[in-house]
């Protein structure tokens, strides 16, 4: 399962340790196995036959946010996250998913893949509660702070093709599960903005969960059907651009699908073609001159960089530039905006103590800015930040929601 390239890469780790200090998990634990270097070296030992695939190793491998900070910091150019992802698949093949998670992902896949956020939103709120005896919390997040499900999935409420007269562009919009099931507001904002800009929007009804949370957990076979379906679907529509407003889905479509299919021995051409067309909504909106259309919003906004947007997709300036365009809205940069919020998908649930400490630092940075809006383009980050905010009166929000508000005046 681990491709030859990745195998060779292990030997390029010069053990310099430059990846240690930036790694949020290492910074909390301060032991070598919690660091990227430690994990890479253990993987090498496994490949060289000095170490068995032990349960302890599995624990070590999963004590990682997959935030990719190590990858961007490694001067040797090791794709540390890719290596760890591939290794996750290998260990899950041997050990299967651990108890709780197995249950989770069986739910997620079922016959059809039940989306990730359906799990967080509904299942957790009632059926599964007894499984989590943690004082009304899941990981670090109080249950009462989990969002409610959309009354009706977003995709059901809108037509598949939203036409405009004399379109200035034609995009395919991949909503992602969070928007579809939890946060229809964001979907509505996205579509409204696009329509007002004179862009024709296609929202395929049969798009599936991007599958990233599941294959990051090491269960690629469960995710494969979705991925193949999504790839095929997108290439059926003739559009210039595929827009995504979820950082994780964007990372999946733009970057992970081709890697992943290659590792699985599948064809990659279509996925590659798709990946070329994908843009984060902030990238796409920057192509237009929104400035004149925006009306003032009073207040202060700060921005948190989602790992899947900043490091996976390399999108940093556009969301900030978008927010700065809103009249009277004061943009303040928080300290360490690019450090992971500590959520990491199911990480916060499996390692609440580590996660809590990482998130505490993020919350502190946010509070120091005295902002009343925290904008970020990832549903996982929004959940994690909102769930851990102590202060009331701070709104955690997607940048497009603010833009939409500003457009509407």
């Amino acid at each position, binding site marked *: 399962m681990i491709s030859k390239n990745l195998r060779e890469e292990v030997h390029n780790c010069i*053990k310099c340790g430059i990846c240690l200090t930036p790694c949020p998990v290492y910074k909390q634990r*301060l032991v070598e196995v919690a660091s990227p270097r430690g994990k890479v070296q253990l993987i090498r030992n496994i490949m060289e036959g000095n*170490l068995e695939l032990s349960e302890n190793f599995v624990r070590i491998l999963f004590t990682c946010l997959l935030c990719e900070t190590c990858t961007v910091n490694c001067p040797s*150019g090791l794709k540390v996250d890719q290596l760890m992802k591939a290794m996750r698949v290998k260990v899950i093949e041997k050990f299967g998913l651990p108890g709780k998670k197995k249950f989770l992902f069986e739910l997620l896949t079922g016959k059809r893949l039940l989306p990730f956020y359906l799990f967080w939103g509904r299942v957790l709120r009632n059926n599964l509660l007894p499984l989590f005896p943690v004082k009304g919390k899941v990981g670090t997040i109080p249950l009462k702070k989990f969002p409610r499900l959309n009354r009706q999935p977003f995709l059901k409420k809108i037509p598949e093709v939203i036409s405009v007269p004399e379109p200035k562009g034609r995009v395919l919009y991949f909503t992602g599960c969070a928007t579809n099931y939890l946060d229809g507001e964001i979907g509505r904002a996205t579509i409204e903005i696009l329509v007002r800009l004179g862009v024709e929007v296609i929202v395929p009804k049969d798009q599936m969960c991007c599958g990233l949370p599941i294959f990051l957990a090491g269960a690629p076979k469960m995710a494969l059907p979705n991925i193949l379906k999504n790839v095929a679907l997108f290439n059926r529509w003739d559009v210039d651009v595929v827009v995504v407003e979820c950082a994780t889905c964007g990372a999946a479509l733009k970057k992970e699908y081709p890697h992943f299919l290659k590792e699985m021995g599948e064809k990659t051409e279509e996925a590659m073609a798709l990946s070329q067309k994908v843009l984060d909504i902030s990238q796409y909106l920057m192509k237009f001159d929104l400035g004149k259309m925006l009306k003032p919003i009073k207040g202060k906004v700060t921005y948190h960089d989602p790992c899947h947007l900043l490091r996976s997709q390399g999108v940093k300036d556009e969301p900030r530039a978008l927010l700065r365009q809103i009249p009277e809205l004061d943009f303040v940069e928080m300290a360490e905006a690019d450090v992971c919020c500590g959520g990491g998908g199911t990480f916060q649930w499996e390692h609440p103590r580590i996660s809590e400490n990482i998130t505490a630092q993020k919350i502190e940075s946010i509070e120091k800015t005295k902002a009343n809006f925290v904008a970020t383009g990832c549903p996982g980050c929004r959940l994690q930040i909102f769930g851990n905010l102590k202060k009331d009166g701070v709104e955690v929000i997607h940048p497009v929601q603010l833009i939409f508000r500003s457009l509407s005046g």
Partner: protein
Amino acid sequence: MLTEKILHEFETILGKERILTSKEDLLSYAYDAYVEEYLPEAVLFPKTSAEVSQIMQVASTHRIFVTPRGAGSGLAACSLAKQGGVILCFTMMNRILEINKPNRYAIVEPGVVVSEFQKEVEKIGLFYPPDPGSATVATMGGTVLMNAGGMRGIKYGVTRDYLMGLQGVLPSGEVIQTGSLTAKDVTGYDLTRLICGSEGTLAVVTRITVRLLPKPKARRTLQAIYNTIDQAGNTVARIVEEGIIPATLELMDKMIIKALEDYAHLGLPLDAEAVLLIEVDGDPESVEKQAGIIAEFCRGQGARDVRVSQSEKESEQLWMARRGAFGAVARMRPTCVIEDATVPVSFLTRAIKEVITIAQRNQVQIAVLAHAGDGNLHPLVLCDLRDKEEMKRVEKAMDEIVDFAMSVGGVLSGEHGIGIAKAKYLPRQLSPQTLNLMRTLKNTFDPLGILNPGSFLECAP
């Protein structure tokens, strides 16, 4: 041998949480940034000097080998359990205890990461100059025990020059204090300096007092590009001769340029033979003036392009890239061994050319990086550890580099230490009498020989 019983004694000191013994944990303390590896029997994480003292007492009683470790970024296996025993790892003992602005000193625990410390003091207008390429990972303890240098050596010296005092624990468990909080102090032998750079063989350091400087008000970075190594070398000579002391003066050869381009895309020309990266700092007016004069020198020696950074951000990018140079070069081949020979600065150009010839003669790939201002060469030898044939040629090239350095009055190591990497050369630089005295000293500090066994003195012939 580390028995269950002894482990239990350690446990009563530290608790179970701060002792690691799983195979996975041991394997991940078997390496540093050098190529060889040694498996320890346990890894202990103290948080106070009292704990360290108790640990050393237990170790002395049972003759357990103890090897201190910081971040494991060392380049000579100094922090590895070369003869087994336990690793005493300081990453969890990492508080900044005091930053004293009026008297310009700070007291830190050994596990503080150098760059984090630098950031903290700079926040209040102070400056801690020692700046190894590994500053973002190396610990204060590790840099003290290696007497780490770095890029600012030419103007600001090395770690030793900023040390005021230490708290240490002897192998017996006794706690000692060296140095003081005063700027001047000639009381007794200078044990601070003796322990500094001792590669963790004399005492375990549990508290460090360092001197701080006021933060320079301005800095500028210059980048000069040359068609030949000679031109770059002559520029260095010219600058040194003229009595201008830049904060840093780094030289990179063609291979480094290529690697850096692949890594950081700085827009360096791939056909250039050498690049000088120069930083000047101080008061704004003198910085401007010095930058101007240096730029003139560069042009005068035939630099084909001289660029002066226009902003802090631009300088930062250049130095970030330089910091990543070692890793960036390592992209090219699986293994990268760093040489660290240092020559009197007037021999610098000759030394670089010699290294290039040695590489060609032995058919090995060597990229040259140098802290040019202080004659500290860093030839990076690129190879593949799995290729035995090639490693033999590498060995031979290393021998020849040492030969050359010795022949012009140079030293074995400028800043990375001897460790096991260079122990075999030790008698080339130190006389039998000197070696003997060092061994006697070691014996006085550590009569049982339990602290960092297998280190440079022991493996020297």
